[in-house]
């Protein structure tokens, strides 16, 4: 067993880990030794080919096919230097005041989240892209919303030098997206933080992280790890878990922690999402341009869903359509004429929806669609179909209908056609990429796992700084809120460094 010594170990390098690494890097000047241990690889610039399956296997956990325990939903998690910030679209929204107020975490207010979020909006070049660079797939959504009196809003995005490849979710081939792999991690490394890739932390034994470094196989993308393959015991004084809402609870569950944490793994939410597709009579620009320019949150409080524009790749699109055979293939053949909308259900923490580990210590996510989530997906489907038709679509594929192809002439029957009962295991393809909860913040171990700084109750040397901190879903794209909370945790660690690192 190899041994290493650090003062601070950060597990994971996504929105949380990358931010914490950067914000703590100033300590390195005082001789503090900091390591980031990242399970995934660091890709080289020419590794980003835009090929769907190849990139999904290189950048996502289980190639993007991680399933919940009953097989009803696929969870997308980035696994790379930069975590999920390598594969998101860079959409950057500040958490709504009503959400932060609703979390009701003592000591954590909206103003602080807003202030810290704005810091990273500036740091990561968040801005609105020019209208001339918005493609027809997005424009049609905005037009359909306007015709229906809905208030579609443009997403601020964190890109620099975006060419509009449309390939954001496969890792930007032009390195335009300003995720932590482009901004915070390089800054941290310049400050003296060591980032070790292909290094999976298996468990914590007290303050010692037991980890395994995987070799890079010849067929794999990316750089080899800076450490030789093998098992390691990495001693430190502070551990910050930033592996995301699945892996952080799983890591803590399989570790020997000197505290009872009955809420660990509970409170998992994920914004279950549905990809909807419509066909127009002519080709539209869809696979060129930033894929996600607009969102609609008019219905978030009344019906529990948000709509976003999106554009996915052939396999992901095919998987999202219901059924198979000639009608399925015919729709796929219309690809250049397709418009897409993503429906996100704003789910809430529910008993039973949680992260656990199996006998081998691997994460298992238990998640059932509540009646409210099924209803939100159904209402979101109906609203999306209306937007498609208002934008001029000929037909809409409605996966939650017995006959999924709905023609424009049948638009007035949408309420009757959409069947909530079809959101069941093995039914409609539902996926989620906004994984949250499992180590929720709160006052005591009775109602939460950490305090408002992400410090685990009863374990003063152990912090969490990722989306698992969310006590309930954030109802928007989560990364800025993750960065804001990670920034807050890092500030606390800096303030208490004298005691923590003694």
């Amino acid at each position: 067993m190899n041994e290493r010594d650090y003062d601070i170990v950060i597990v994971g390098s996504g929105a949380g880990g990358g931010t914490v690494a950067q914000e703590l890097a100033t300590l390195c000047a005082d001789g503090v030794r900091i390591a980031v241990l990242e399970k995934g690889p660091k890709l080289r610039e020419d590794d980003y080919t835009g090929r769907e399956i190849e990139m999904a296997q290189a950048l996502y956990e289980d190639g993007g096919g991680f399933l919940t325990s009953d097989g009803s939903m696929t969870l997308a998690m980035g696994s790379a230097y930069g975590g999920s910030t390598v594969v998101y679209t860079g959409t950057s929204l500040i958490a709504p005041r009503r959400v932060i107020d609703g979390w009701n975490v003592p000591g954590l207010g909206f103003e602080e989240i807003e202030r810290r979020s704005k810091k990273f909006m500036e740091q990561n070049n968040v801005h609105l892209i020019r209208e001339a660079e918005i493609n027809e797939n997005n424009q049609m959504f905005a037009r359909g919303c306007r015709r229906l009196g809905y208030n579609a809003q443009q997403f601020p995005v964190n890109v620099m030098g975006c060419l509009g490849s449309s390939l954001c979710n496969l890792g930007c081939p032009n390195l335009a997206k300003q995720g932590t792999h482009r901004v915070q991690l390089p800054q941290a490394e310049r400050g003296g933080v060591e980032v070790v890739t292909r290094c999976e932390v298996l468990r914590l034994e007290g303050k010692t992280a037991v980890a395994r470094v995987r070799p890079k196989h010849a067929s794999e993308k990316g750089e080899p790890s800076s450490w030789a393959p093998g098992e390691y015991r990495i001693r430190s004084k502070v551990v910050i878990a930033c592996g995301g809402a699945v892996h952080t609870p799983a890591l803590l569950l399989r570790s020997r922690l000197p505290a009872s944490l009955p809420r660990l793994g509970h409170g998992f939410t994920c914004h279950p999402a549905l990809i909807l597709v419509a066909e127009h009579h002519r080709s539209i620009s869809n696979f060129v341009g930033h894929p996600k320019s607009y969102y609609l949150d008019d219905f978030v409080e009344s019906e529990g869903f948000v709509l976003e524009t999106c554009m996915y790749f052939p396999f992901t699109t095919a998987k999202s359509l219901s059924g198979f055979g000639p009608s399925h293939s015919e729709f796929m053949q219309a690809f250049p004429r397709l418009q897409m909308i993503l429906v996100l259900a704003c789910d809430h923490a529910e008993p039973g929806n949680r992260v656990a580990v199996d006998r081998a210590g691997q994460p298992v996510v238990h998640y059932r669609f509540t009646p409210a989530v099924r209803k939100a997906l159904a209402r979101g489907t109906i609203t999306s179909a209306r937007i498609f038709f208002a934008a001029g679509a000929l037909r809409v594929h409605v996966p939650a209908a017995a006959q999924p192809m709905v023609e424009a002439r049948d638009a007035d029957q949408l309420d009757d056609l959409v069947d909530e009962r079809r959101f069941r295991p093995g039914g409609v393809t539902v996926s989620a990429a906004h994984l949250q909860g499992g180590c929720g913040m709160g006052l005591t171990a009775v109602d939460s796992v950490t305090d408002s700084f992400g410090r685990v109750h009863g374990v003063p040397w152990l912090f969490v700084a990722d989306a698992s901190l969310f006590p309930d879903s954030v109802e928007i794209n989560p990364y800025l809120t993750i960065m804001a909370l990670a920034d807050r945790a890092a500030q606390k660690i800096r303030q208490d460094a004298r005691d923590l690192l003694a």
Partner: protein
Amino acid sequence: METSEPITATDAPPLHRVFRPVVATVVPAAAELDDSAWSELESLVVESLQRRPASVQRKLRLFLKLIQWLPLLRHGTPFTSLDPERRARFLTRLQEHPLPVIRVGFWGLRTLALLGYYGRAGGGREIGYRPDPLGWDKYRP
């Protein structure tokens, strides 16, 4: 046959022999693929499966066996001997089956078939999907 070894593209019948008709039922155009395209399709599926837990591979083997032999009960012949129309009807029954385990099993198999077919280099081109890293610089009129 229920072992923890990964399914491979050269898997012996009936598993390998059953998978191709399933793919060609899910995507009828797959029946027209040449050997090289089938090889690419199956390699993608195999690579995807190799990254999944062994239990997933075991379940897939079992499910393919069920698909091959369940039609004996209704049609008196295995899946591979059914005509395309009956194959489609049989798979539709699995897709709509009241037992979640059957529906989920078919959903997984259908997903693999679509991954193999549309994940091929030609899978995107054939449906007019032609993204380019140069984005607007490539496509702006």
